[in-house]
């Protein structure tokens, strides 16, 4: 007896779980579709909201793409700074070698290579454009050169780099020190700042997008006030009333994110030839990288999340008032 009723109760519970799942799906499906219909009924509003979302999201998106491309340029570089140390007078090979050894002992220095002025002149003579001029000189005008490479970590530490430069320059034999790659260090430091600014910008724009969506949803709520009130009078739960608005926010956010990615691709297509031309003047075969699939997905997900958040905020602050009114 007990086993039978237990089994019957179990079956009933199972059936009601299935029924519950089915009615949950039905409720969400209906809300999702009704939200789409509602958005289609106001094509101008919907299009402008989606475009505003897309433009707003495209802004930081372009920033991240630019940053990613710059990062790949900088990443190609040997991550060490080099200093060209010019040695005055004619110290001779032994003194030059000693000087180079001393420099290697400076903390942060990874290596020092000597370029003798004879060798430099020979190299220059091999170059056609200078080859004809050099015989006119009766003396080698080039100084001896020591190329000092720092450790990789020094590159972005401008203070340490400056300390190394000062120590080298303090040697009486040294006539001049030129930092060839200091700009990369500056660029990397700048990129770190830009990245932080981008994060702040993204957060700010995210809030803006949520507010824009929240505002359109607020207008939609106001427009459908009668329907909300009547639905509530006939037993609609708050969840039932909220759902279509949440989906409306979600759809607009997702569409905005997708459109933002498209805008960025169009921007990339437009600037790509220019970037390639610029890179080739530096002897680089650099090609602009387009948004990756992960970035597309990221834009859509972030757009959707912001749309949903904006709608949720709007719905929770504007639907509360209709709880009891006729």
């Amino acid at each position, binding site marked *: 007896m007990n086993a039978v009723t237990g089994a019957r109760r179990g079956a009933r519970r199972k059936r009601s779980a299935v029924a519950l799942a089915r009615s949950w799906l039905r409720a969400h499906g209906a809300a999702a579709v009704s939200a789409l219909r509602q958005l289609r009924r106001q094509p101008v509003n919907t299009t402008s909201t989606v475009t505003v979302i897309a433009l707003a999201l495209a802004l930081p998106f372009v920033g991240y793409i630019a940053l990613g491309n710059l990062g790949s340029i900088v990443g190609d570089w040997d991550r060490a700074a080099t200093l060209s140390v010019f040695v005055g007078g004619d110290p001779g090979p032994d003194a030059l070698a000693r000087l180079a050894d001393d420099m290697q002992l400076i903390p942060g220095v990874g290596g020092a290579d000597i370029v003798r002025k004879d060798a430099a002149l020979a190299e220059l003579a091999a170059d056609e454009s200078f080859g004809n001029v050099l015989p006119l000189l009766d003396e080698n005008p080039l100084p001896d050169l020591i190329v000092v490479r720092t450790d990789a970590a020094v590159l972005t530490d401008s203070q340490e780099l400056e300390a190394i430069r000062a120590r080298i320059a303090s040697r009486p034999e040294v006539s001049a020190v030129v930092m060839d790659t200091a700009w990369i260090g500056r660029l990397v430091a700048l990129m770190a700042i830009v990245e932080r600014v981008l994060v702040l910008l993204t957060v700010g724009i995210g809030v803006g997008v949520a507010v824009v969506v929240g505002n359109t949803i607020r207008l939609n709520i106001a427009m459908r006030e*009668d*329907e909300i009130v009547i*639905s509530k009078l006939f*037993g609609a*739960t708050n969840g*039932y009333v909220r759902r279509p608005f949440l989906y409306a926010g979600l759809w607009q956010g997702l569409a905005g994110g997708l459109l933002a990615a498209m805008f960025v691709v169009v921007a990339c297509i437009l600037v790509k030839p220019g970037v390639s031309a610029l890179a080739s003047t530096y002897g680089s075969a650099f090609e602009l990288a387009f948004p990756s699939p992960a970035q597309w997905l990221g834009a859509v997900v972030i757009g959707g999340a912001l749309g949903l958040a904006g709608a949720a905020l709007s719905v929770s602050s504007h639907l509360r008032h209709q709880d009891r*009114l006729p």
Partner: protein
Amino acid sequence: MILFDAVSKRYDGDQDALRDVSMEVAAGEFVFLTGHSGAGKSTILRLIALIEHPSRGQIVVDGRNTARISARELPYYRRQIGMIFQDHRLLPDRTVFDNVALPLVVAGHSPLEISKRVRAALDKVGLLSKERRLPPALSSGEQQRVGIARAVVNRPKLLLADEPTGNLDPALSREILRLFGQFHQVGVTVVIATHDIGLINQVPARTIALRDGNVVRDTHATLEALP
């Protein structure tokens, strides 16, 4: 079914809309609420439907103290009540079918069940042929019948009608009243607020008369027969 115990209602700042009203309506009763405009008829219906809350006193509906019904439970409470308004309160941009379906849709019934019950309700009020129309394309009497179909489609225990014949001529009013009589006969408790004396005189039903928020007369007459 409905119990008012020393209920007073005062809207913000105003004078009392109801003063110390006590009354009881048994399950399955058919009751008219009458009185001049502003007497408090609509307020009583709104208190029963929990659209408003009493300032003082207790209201018990179907054995439940309405003060203890939480915001969460409210929708489920309202699904047991069918409401009919003088101004119909139909959604003008939804078909007759969709308007009548609303209480079933919000309760999450299956499309098959919804279509079956909506057709049955529309058949009952004689508007099955107009299910695809929009409310503005219907006459006032037809719109009121759509409102009645919507109120009964969920098979509520309690029907509350606020001036249901307010804009209708006597023939249409009789027609509407006949519908309420039919629901009453299948066990539904019916409360009709009206100042239409002509309507009341057609039916020997219990009448609770209000004046300035007080119950001034309660016939307690049991309903013998309806037209």
